[in-house]
C-alpha cells in the first residue's frame, strides 16, 4: 500500500480544492510559518479516522471546516480524499486502488466513503488497522510530539510498542 494523492476542499486553511500527488520515496513539505503545512498533516490524520478534535488542535470537529478570512466567507463543509495504490489484500477489499473520503458539516454530521460508496467511520478505521497506520500511530508524528516519546510516563509510553506487536 502506498499514498497516491490527497485532495482537500474546505479543510482548515485549504478553502479551495487542492491536490497533492505523492511519489515513492521522500516528499518534503515546506513554507513559512502559518501557511498550512501542519494542516496537510491534520487532513491526512483526519481522513484516516482521527476522532479527537484536540489531536487536530481544535475544540470540536467543526473547527476543521474553513472558517473564512477577512475577504472570504466561511464554508459549510470540509472534505478530504486520500487515494492509496496497491491495496490488494487489504481488509476485505478487492480493489487495487482505494479512495477514502471524509466530510464534515457545520451541524457536526459526518459522511464517509470508500471508492465513492457510503460507509461508516469504522470501515475506514478497520482498513488501516493492520497496516500500523491510524490515530496516534507511531508513524504519524505531529509537530512537537517527538519530545513526548521521552517525556511521557513509562506506562503511557507502551502504546506505541503495542501498536507494533
Amino acid at each position: 500500500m502506498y499514498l497516491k494523492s490527497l485532495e482537500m476542499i474546505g479543510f482548515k486553511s485549504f478553502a479551495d480544492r487542492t491536490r497533492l500527488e505523492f511519489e515513492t520515496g521522500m516528499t518534503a513539505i515546506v513554507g513559512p510559518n502559518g501557511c498550512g503545512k501542519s494542516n496537510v498533516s491534520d487532513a491526512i490524520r483526519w481522513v484516516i479516522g482521527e476522532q479527537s478534535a484536540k489531536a487536530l488542535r481544535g475544540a470540536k470537529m467543526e473547527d476543521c471546516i474553513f472558517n473564512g478570512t477577512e475577504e472570504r466567507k466561511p464554508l459549510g463543509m470540509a472534505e478530504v480524499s486520500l487515494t492509496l495504490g496497491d491495496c490488494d489484500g487489504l481488509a476485505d477489499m478487492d480493489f487495487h486502488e482505494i479512495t477514502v473520503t471524509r466530510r464534515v458539516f457545520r451541524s457536526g454530521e459526518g459522511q464517509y466513503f470508500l471508492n465513492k460508496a457510503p460507509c461508516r467511520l469504522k470501515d475506514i478505521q478497520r482498513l488501516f488497522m493492520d497496516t500500523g497506520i491510524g490515530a496516534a500511530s507511531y508513524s504519524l508524528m505531529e509537530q512537537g510530539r517527538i519530545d513526548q516519546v521521552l517525556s511521557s510516563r513509562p506506562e503511557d509510553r507502551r502504546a506505541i510498542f503495542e501498536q507494533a506487536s
Partner: protein
Amino acid sequence: TTEMFRRTFDQINANFETMFGKLFRGGAAKLVLVNEEDILECGIEIIARPPGKRLQNISLLSGGERTLTAVALLFAIYMCKPSPFCLLDEMDAALDEANISRFVKILEGFLKLSQFIVITHNRQTIAAAGTLYGVTMPKKGISKIVSMKFRDFEKQAEPAA
C-alpha cells in the same frame, strides 16, 4: 500474547541499541520493562548514554539529544514493523546540522520500505527529498500548494532584507 509482546519488545530493543549507536556514532541505549512479572501492563523505561558520557537520567539529556534518542526509538519500531507511509512534522526542529545529516542518511535507508512525508524548514532534509511541495498563502488565510524544485526553495528561504 505475552509471548508475542516479549518477542516484539526484544526485537525493538535490539534495533534501538543499533539505531542509537548509528545516530550518536557511539554510546549505548536500551529499553527496560519496569516489571518483568507483568510485561503486558508495566511501563517501559528508556536508558540512554551518549558516547563518552556517563549514564544519567534521560531528563538530563539536551534538547537535541532527546530528539535523537526518540528518533532512534521510532526507527527501531519502523524496522520491526514498517508502515506503508510515515508522516513527520518538523522532527528535525531541535537538531543541529551534523545530527540532521545523520538523521537524513538513516531515513533514506527506510525509503525502500516506506513512503515518507516530512514537513521541515531545514535545507539538508529538503535536499534529500525526491518531491518538494511549497505551501503558501498568496491570499491571506487561504493555503495554496505549489510543486517546487530545490532551487526555488533556496531562493524563497532567503529572509526579506
